[in-house]
């Protein structure tokens, strides 16, 4: 067996965490791979206990209940710092202070439970009505969505929220967790090639001894079906967001989804069904994908241009069109097979 063949062998692990499937592929010996996979699982479980708003005693929920300055963990400090930066980068479209709006829209339990619950029952209707008033109050108070709703004291790991603010970090934690543990596997365990995929947020790495990673993009309407075309990468990150999968029916028959537009504090009214971003960092790709979904095609292109964004971004709209904005010079190499209706070059 050649050295290349030996180096390219993979072990693949799967488990559930953060209400999603986590896939770990590692180019390593069996014992080493099992050790690494156990670390990855423990890492995700630890972060789920810390950041979930569906775990009663999570650090996030304790923070949301707390008033005044609260000491926080290093992980919470890092994620809040990242979130702070992303609020600026997205001009406030990424806004963790939307927890009440998510609950008001009906996303008050984990999505699995939401699916089991089906149509809202009468008791839940009362909950929705009472929570709606919180959101109305927020809007009446000229809620400034473009600024963070908390402050951190540099070097002390202390945080102070604005009164009445409840944070939801679901839009960033998964990507951050993927990126951080992938970094550990590369730099500390020296695993030469691998891929972590948590709910389709991916960080992959490898060397020239390894084959390129090939990532299929699933159809927004049919999870089992892939779109025609795939993404080829040696090393980097991919994240996808969309409004179709995590949506539910309200009591009036209308559909809600989990991507809240902080300008209206309601599920985004958007033409984008699904957006996939290719870059270097999973959390950054995740934030960009969500922002494009919330903004819609026209505003998204303007936002990406204003920030001279360098990521490859592909999205599908309700009318069946496929858009691409990114490096068109490497389009055929990185995104082979995609049939694009609209393409925008980097500026």
């Amino acid at each position, binding site marked *: 067996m050649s050295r290349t063949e030996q180096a390219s062998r993979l072990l693949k692990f799967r488990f559930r965490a953060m209400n999603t499937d986590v896939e770990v592929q590692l180019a390593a010996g*069996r014992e080493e791979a099992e*050790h690494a996979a156990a670390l990855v699982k423990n890492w995700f479980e630890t972060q789920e206990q810390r950041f979930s708003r569906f775990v009663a005693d999570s650090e996030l929920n304790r923070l949301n209940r707390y008033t005044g300055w609260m000491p926080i963990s290093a992980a919470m400090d890092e994620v809040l710092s990242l979130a702070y930066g992303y609020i600026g*980068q997205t001009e406030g479209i990424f806004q963790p202070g939307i927890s009440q709006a998510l609950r008001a829209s009906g996303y008050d339990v984990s999505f699995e439970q939401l699916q089991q619950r089906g149509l809202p029952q009468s008791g839940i209707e009362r909950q929705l009505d009472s929570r709606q008033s919180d959101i109305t109050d927020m809007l009446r108070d000229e809620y400034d969505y473009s600024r963070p709703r908390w402050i951190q004291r540099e070097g002390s790991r202390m945080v102070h929220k604005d009164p009445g603010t409840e944070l939801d970090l679901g839009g960033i934690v998964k990507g951050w967790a993927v990126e951080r543990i992938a970094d550990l596997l590369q730099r500390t365990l020296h695993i030469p090639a691998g891929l972590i995929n948590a709910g389709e947020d991916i960080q992959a790495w490898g060397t020239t001894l390894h084959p390129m*990673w090939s990532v299929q993009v699933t159809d927004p309407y049919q999870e089992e079906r892939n779109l025609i075309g795939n993404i080829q990468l040696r090393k980097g990150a991919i994240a996808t967001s969309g*409004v179709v999968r995590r949506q539910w029916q309200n009591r009036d028959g209308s559909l809600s989804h989990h991507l809240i537009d902080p300008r209206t504090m309601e599920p985004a009214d958007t033409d984008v*069904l699904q957006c996939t971003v290719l870059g270097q960092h999973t959390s*950054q790709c995740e934030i960009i994908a969500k922002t494009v979904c919330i903004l819609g095609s026209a505003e998204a292109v303007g936002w990406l241009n204003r920030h001279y964004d360098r990521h490859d971004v592909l999205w599908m709209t309700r009318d069946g069109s496929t858009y691409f904005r990114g490096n068109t010079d490497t389009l055929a190499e990185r995104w082979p097979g995609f049939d694009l209706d609209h393409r925008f070059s980097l500026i």
Partner: protein
Amino acid sequence: MTRKKRNQWRKWQASAAATLTVAALFQYVRTSDAFDVAYAAANGNDISSTASTQIDAQDDVMDEWTNHTDNSDASSNGGNSLDEGTTDGSKAIGPNQDRSSGGWIINQNSNQDTDSGYSRGNYQSRTGAS
């Protein structure tokens, strides 16, 4: 005349020294991690990459996690699957602890070498709205 020239020379020396000091200071700031982070944040680019550069020296997040797992028994492998279609009693090492790996299932690909327990990966994955 000589005195005037000497004064001009001193002024020039003072000016040059000040310029060099500012340049050196800027060079120091420019190469510091804090500058990288602030610059990236101001430009809305790759904050995470500069943040991870800072983390290189001392990774409080990973230290915190390691300490947490040292003090708890939360890293059981139960429920994991290693895609081989079989479970075995071999051992996996959790964070600083030996643990049973019951539940791992190795991927059963057509071209795998079953004797070694490896599967020949196809380097494929999927992404979609979750």
